[in-house]
């Protein structure tokens, strides 16, 4: 595994210091830089776990048609055009015509340009077709509308309609009463009341006593006075719901369960005649066990989403309206604010380069690109050895920054929960990282340095010189710790990691990165005018977790521990 650097998002936790790298919770709070956002207002990193998300548009992932939000509910969040999913394998189904009538003497071109009716849905992956389950179409367009009738008469959708009818008056009544109350009804406020009355109605229904089930007491959970009053009022008003169909007789209607299923299983000859759980559980209704009863599924819609800062509600991500556009009206991503950090182990880079060169020299060499397995085998770090590593920082800002790196001391938990480990050894960190804490500068980002048409960041001569230099003689023993290289908006600093003889596990440590930048000369889109009174420099600090790779234990250590 190549060395990696992940960035910390505190997600509102009061502990700004991330968990120690060897705990499982570490992976929960660290993310790749390109998945993070940055709120200028709060001056904080945000991640997908803590931002609030709003749907800004719906579209069908197959026909890519943008569905107005008004019709999304009516169409039950699914595409109402010609898009269906195979009930067997979830592939998209295609509409195919029947074979043209065979007149006998020769081929006759189809009468219609679209083909011969009846049409049916066909899966090009598993060869399921809708004619098998008795679904055919008169014309190849508007299939959803043609299927509507049978869909609407299905027991599950009838039951759903009935439930809606049952709850509608209750919801309407409670929202009416809330809007007519003394409180002035702003839209947001009435929405709030509206949703609480729905929740109240639902929890009242859930709170009913069921014989043999322990009593649920909603009052003990929430202490809000008005809420509980509403709830008790609703509980009294709500009429009993009677389902259309009795669950005990449902199996006779072909909707699964009971004796017919037992009978079917008894005469089963082919396992694939039984629909798998995966094929059945997305239905809202208990369905038949049999594969032959599976119906084509309308494709669920996808959404485009805006993202907001959870603290100040400023928008961090706002996509363009067009469904397939990959552009954004607003896109505040952390990569435009924080320096990008990458880590390399020079001994690995050299080995990979060498292996690739060897492969290129072979006359019929198959692979010049290393496989992951080959890399894995080469990238181990031997216990007891010392390895240099390179940290390269790329500045995304239009101003130079001063960066200070500090490796967080490993606090190995004092009481070892693992009874097998010898406490003396466990307490000593398995490796020691040396990295200079002296601040260094990273030059400003400039458009000219971007890779361009014919201008690569390294010109070929330089690259070749560097490559050949490395290969011809053993690497000149220059310093390995400190600033190694500065070019364009990149600075490379070196560090060293010393592995103890008894070390095992992963070389993984937390690193605090703090950088200072000029606040007043920030680009126009950074910071509001009110911020111009701020001091000339600002410092931002964030944590990262660096993983250099697995430690290959020494033979004697392994025996030592195993016994």
């Amino acid at each position, binding site marked *: 595994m*190549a060395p990696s650097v992940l960035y910390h998002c505190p997600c509102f936790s009061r502990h700004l210091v991330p968990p120690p790298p060897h705990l499982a919770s570490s992976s929960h709070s660290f993310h790749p830089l*390109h*998945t993070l956002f940055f709120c200028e207002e709060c001056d904080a990193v945000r991640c997908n776990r803590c931002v609030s998300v709003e749907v800004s548009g719906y*579209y069908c*992932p*197959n*026909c*890519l048609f943008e569905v107005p939000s008004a019709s999304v509910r009516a169409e039950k969040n699914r595409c109402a055009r010609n898009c269906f999913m195979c009930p067997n*394998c*979830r*592939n*998209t189904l*295609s509409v195919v015509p029947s074979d043209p009538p065979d007149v006998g003497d020769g*081929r006759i*071109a*189809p009468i219609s*340009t679209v083909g011969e009716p009846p049409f049916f849905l066909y*899966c*090009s*992956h*598993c060869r399921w077709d809708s004619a098998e389950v008795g679904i055919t179409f008169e014309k190849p367009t508007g299939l959803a509308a043609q299927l509507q009738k049978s869909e609407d008469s299905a027991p599950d959708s009838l039951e759903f309609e009935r439930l809606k009818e049952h709850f509608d008056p209750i919801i309407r009544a409670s929202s009416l009463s809330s809007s007519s109350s003394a409180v002035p009804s702003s839209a947001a406020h009435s929405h709030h009341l509206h949703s609480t009355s729905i929740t109240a109605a639902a929890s009242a229904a859930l709170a009913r006593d069921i014989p043999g089930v322990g009593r649920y007491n909603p009052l003990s959970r929430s202490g809000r006075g008005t809420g509980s009053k509403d709830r008790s009022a609703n509980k009294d008003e709500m009429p009993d719901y009677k389902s259309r169909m009795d669950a005990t007789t449902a199996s006779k209607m072909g909707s699964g369960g009971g004796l017919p299923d037992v009978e079917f299983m008894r005469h089963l000859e082919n396992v694939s005649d039984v629909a798998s759980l995966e094929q059945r559980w997305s239905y809202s209704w208990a369905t038949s066990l049999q594969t032959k009863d599976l119906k084509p599924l309308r494709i669920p819609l*996808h959404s485009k989403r805006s993202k907001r800062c959870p603290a100040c509600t400023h928008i961090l*991500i706002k996509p363009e309206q067009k*469904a*397939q556009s*990959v552009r*954004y009206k607003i*896109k505040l*991503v952390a*990569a435009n604010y924080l320096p990008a950090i*990458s880590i*390399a182990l*020079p001994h*690995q*880079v*050299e*080995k*990979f*380069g060498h292996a*690739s*060169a060897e*492969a*290129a*020299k072979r006359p019929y*060499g*198959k*692979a*010049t*690109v290393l496989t992951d397995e080959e890399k894995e085998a080469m990238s181990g770090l031997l216990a007891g050895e010392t390895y240099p590593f*390179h940290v*390269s920082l790329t500045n995304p800002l239009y101003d130079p920054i001063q960066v200070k790196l500090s490796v967080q001391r490993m606090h190995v938990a004092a009481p070892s929960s693992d009874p097998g480990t010898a406490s003396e050894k466990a307490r000593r960190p398995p490796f020691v990282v040396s990295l200079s804490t002296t601040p260094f500068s990273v030059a400003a980002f400039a458009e000219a340095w971007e*890779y361009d048409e014919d201008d*690569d960041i*390294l010109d070929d001569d330089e*690259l*070749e010189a560097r*490559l*050949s230099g490395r*290969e011809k003689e053993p690497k000149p023993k220059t310093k390995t710790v400190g600033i190694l290289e500065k070019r364009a908006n990149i600075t*490379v600093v070196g560090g060293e990691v010393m592995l103890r003889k008894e070390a095992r596990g992963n070389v993984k440590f937390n690193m605090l990165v703090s950088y200072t930048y000029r606040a007043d000369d920030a680009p126009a889109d950074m910071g509001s005018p009110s911020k111009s009174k701020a001091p000339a420099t600002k410092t931002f600090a964030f944590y990262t977790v660096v993983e250099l790779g697995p430690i290959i234990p020494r033979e004697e250590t392994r025996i030592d521990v195993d016994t």
Partner: protein
Amino acid sequence: MESPIYYSKSEFIETDTGNKVSRRATIAGPQNIILGGKTIISSGAIIRGDLRQSRPGHAVVISLGRYCLVGEGCVMRPPYKTYRGTFNYYPMKIGDHVHIGAGSVVEAATIGSHVEIGKNCIIGKFVIIKDCAKVADNSIVPPNTVIPALSFFAGSPAGFVEDLPESTQELVESQTKQFYQRFQPLDRDR
């Protein structure tokens, strides 16, 4: 810093626009193939520019944009169908910054820009892949599938797994450029 990926200088032909094409690749009908520049065609790849509509003269059969990679042993074949009794091939269009992993077979109609296709995938006939999408290694994408922008597909048949991050475009762009830089000829004296 990542290690360079060396190739033998004698194996690859480099064009004026920086395309690097392996002599061990099979390029059928080269006059019908467009490479946008800085695109790499690896060893053992097969590109069927010869499969085209039966019409006289030139026609673009397969076009690839800039900074693309056709991995080792990939097969790129234009899609075909019989429409109103006539059999025909249809052109295949691929955008910029598209990487196709080793051993994949592609018969797609269009692939947008900043798309990553894994190793050993089968991309069926007339598949449409929109910008910034990604297909996992070993996926089977059945014919006529549409893969929306910024979505990650995997499996057999390949299905939607998750949305990709908003910065995918920038990420893929820098990765494909870096790959091109790392792809270096080996010095002759070694």
